[in-house]
């Protein structure tokens, strides 16, 4: 695990993403180029191999249903022009993926904000406040990283069953709390993300220069001022990395939604697709388009914010 806060510095990310320092790109002589041909072939071969499954899905999702069922996706590459958006129209209108997309957003965005807020408070206390049992308590929080999510489901479900609150709350869908409400799943996702979030932010906060805090405290700044004026602005890269991580993790979750959301109206895309898989096992015109809609947001985030994504990976490689 990377606990060194320098890991999150822009330079280290530049290094992880950019060209290697250890192997400066030397001026390529013809002999050097020929010597490198096996290297290029091996690497490009691996890249192609890795991309084929995703490309196959993407190409197929734009093909006519009869074409998908009768010929391979690779035939579409040699005779292009027969692409259609019908699969997407069908999936969004008739299979409920449009609503599921909204549900995914309604589940993911508040959980992500909640994790960041709660974890930042705790991380500040762990990093810059003295209290008895601080290190032991922090270790307990980090230890929760390895608790397999599945084992918590039954006890939490039993708690929820005792806590159904039947008020209708129109804005957040269904009820205020319990297995047919969004707040219940927000809290669950936030709690499952907390050990990692506290771990990541505490390490980053702890790496901020001590002088900054001491002079602020001397000037009579309160904890809240230090937190909002110094800690949060300086920690933007770490918070961005955490936000992306938590967003993707919640967006991609199947299990928590499957167990905690009893109301089909509230299903996110992952649950919807996994139901489509059970009922339309080989109906690929439905499955490919549905899967690609669910991948669109993660892929957009990945391409737009790759730098922060990599930061999160490097800083949090303890997370299982």
């Amino acid at each position, binding site marked *: *695990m990377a*606990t060194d806060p320098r*890991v999150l510095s822009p330079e*280290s990310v530049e290094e*992880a993403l*950019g060209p*290697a320092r*250890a192997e400066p790109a030397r001026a390529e002589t013809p002999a050097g180029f020929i010597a490198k041909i096996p290297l290029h072939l*091996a*690497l490009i071969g*691996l*890249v192609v191999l*890795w991309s084929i*499954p*995703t490309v*196959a899905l993407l190409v*197929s999702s734009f093909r006519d249903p009869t074409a998908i069922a009768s*010929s*391979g996706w690779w035939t579409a590459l040699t005779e292009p022009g027969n692409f259609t958006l019908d699969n997407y129209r069908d999936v969004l209108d008739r299979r409920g993926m449009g609503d599921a997309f909204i549900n995914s957003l309604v589940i993911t965005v508040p959980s992500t904000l909640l994790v960041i807020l709660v974890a930042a*408070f*705790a991380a*500040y206390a762990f990093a810059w*406040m003295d209290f008895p049992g601080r*290190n032991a*308590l922090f270790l*307990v*929080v980090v230890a*929760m990283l390895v*608790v*397999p*999510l*599945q*084992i*918590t*489901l*039954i*006890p*939490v479900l039993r708690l929820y069953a005792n806590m159904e609150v039947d008020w209708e709350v129109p804005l957040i869908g269904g009820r205020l709390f319990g297995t047919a409400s969004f707040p219940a799943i927000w*809290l669950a996702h936030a*709690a*499952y993300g*907390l*050990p990692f979030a*506290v771990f990541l932010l505490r390490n980053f906060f702890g790496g901020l220069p001590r002088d900054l805090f001491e002079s602020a405290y001397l000037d009579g700044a309160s*904890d809240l001022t230090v937190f909002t004026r110094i800690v949060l602005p300086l920690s933007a890269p770490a918070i961005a990395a955490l936000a992306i991580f938590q967003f993707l993790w919640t967006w*991609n979750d*199947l*299990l928590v939604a499957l167990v905690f959301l009893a109301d089909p109206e509230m299903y996110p895309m992952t649950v919807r697709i*996994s139901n489509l898989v059970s009922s339309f096992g080989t109906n*690929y015109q439905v*499955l*490919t388009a549905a*899967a690609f809609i669910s*991948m669109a947001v993660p*892929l957009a985030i990945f391409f737009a914010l790759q730098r922060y994504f990599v930061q999160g990976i*490097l800083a949090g*490689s*303890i*997370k*299982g």
Partner: protein
Amino acid sequence: MIGRRWWVPWLWLSPALALIAVYLVYPTIDTVRRSFMDANSSEWVGFDNYRFIIENPRPLVADTHQALLNNALWLVLFTVATVALGLVIAVLAGRVRYESFAKSAIFIPMAISFVAAGVIWRFMYEFNPDIGTINRVVTELGGERTAWLQNNQSPQSWFTDLGPQDAWGPFQLNNFSLITVAVWMWTGFAVVVLSAGLKGISTEVLEAARVDGANEWQIFWRIIIPIVSPTIAVVATTLVILTLKNFDLVWVMTGGRFGTDVVATQFYRQAFVVGDRGVGAAIAVVLLLMVVPIMLISLRRFQFQEETR
């Protein structure tokens, strides 16, 4: 440090601690308690549930031995394959100008859900060679198509003319198919972390070795591997924890049928499908006990870094 009232830190910590207590600590304790009780959690039964796991009395309903063996196969094969591929790709990519492009391509599967990956690979593994990419390649090469996710025969029958053979232990074709998908998803993670480690190797060391006549092979084994071995340990630890908790991929692709159950899917089946909460909880505790040693190693390393920071 400023003087604070004693309860101020606890105020800042309380939302996080409350959530963790309710959603993680309490359920863990409750699961341990339940593992010593019967199917409805009404009576204490001592170690009966653990005996059930060891004796495996109902292999047709829930084969606990198969699940443990499959998990062991995942643990070794997935971890070794992902680290090895990650290292090879990181080293190769570090020597070309399109490094970030190559790494991004390998890394993309990390961003998508297990559900989407499940759809992608069902399509790849499709039985009909007119549609399924892998069966198409196999038949073009003169092999015979197969149902990659259902076939629980020994994989040797694919390389020899012996015909289908019963698999020994977890060495079933469909387990290898599933592990392939996991490797596809996680190699990008290994590449990113390992290349960050590789950047730490100074040019001087490599140049000095080349001047002394070392070939690339020797440089890889004698210099690069020893220097990045701590990074390899970090990656391997993460992957091992991941395999022990591995649930989603197996659940989405086979539902644990055809002999592909792992410990986490076995737990889910016992607890939610069979309805035996006692045995389910006992499996969960076994799972937890397997993760604890790895967690302790990670924590010790963390404490060491704290002291030296």
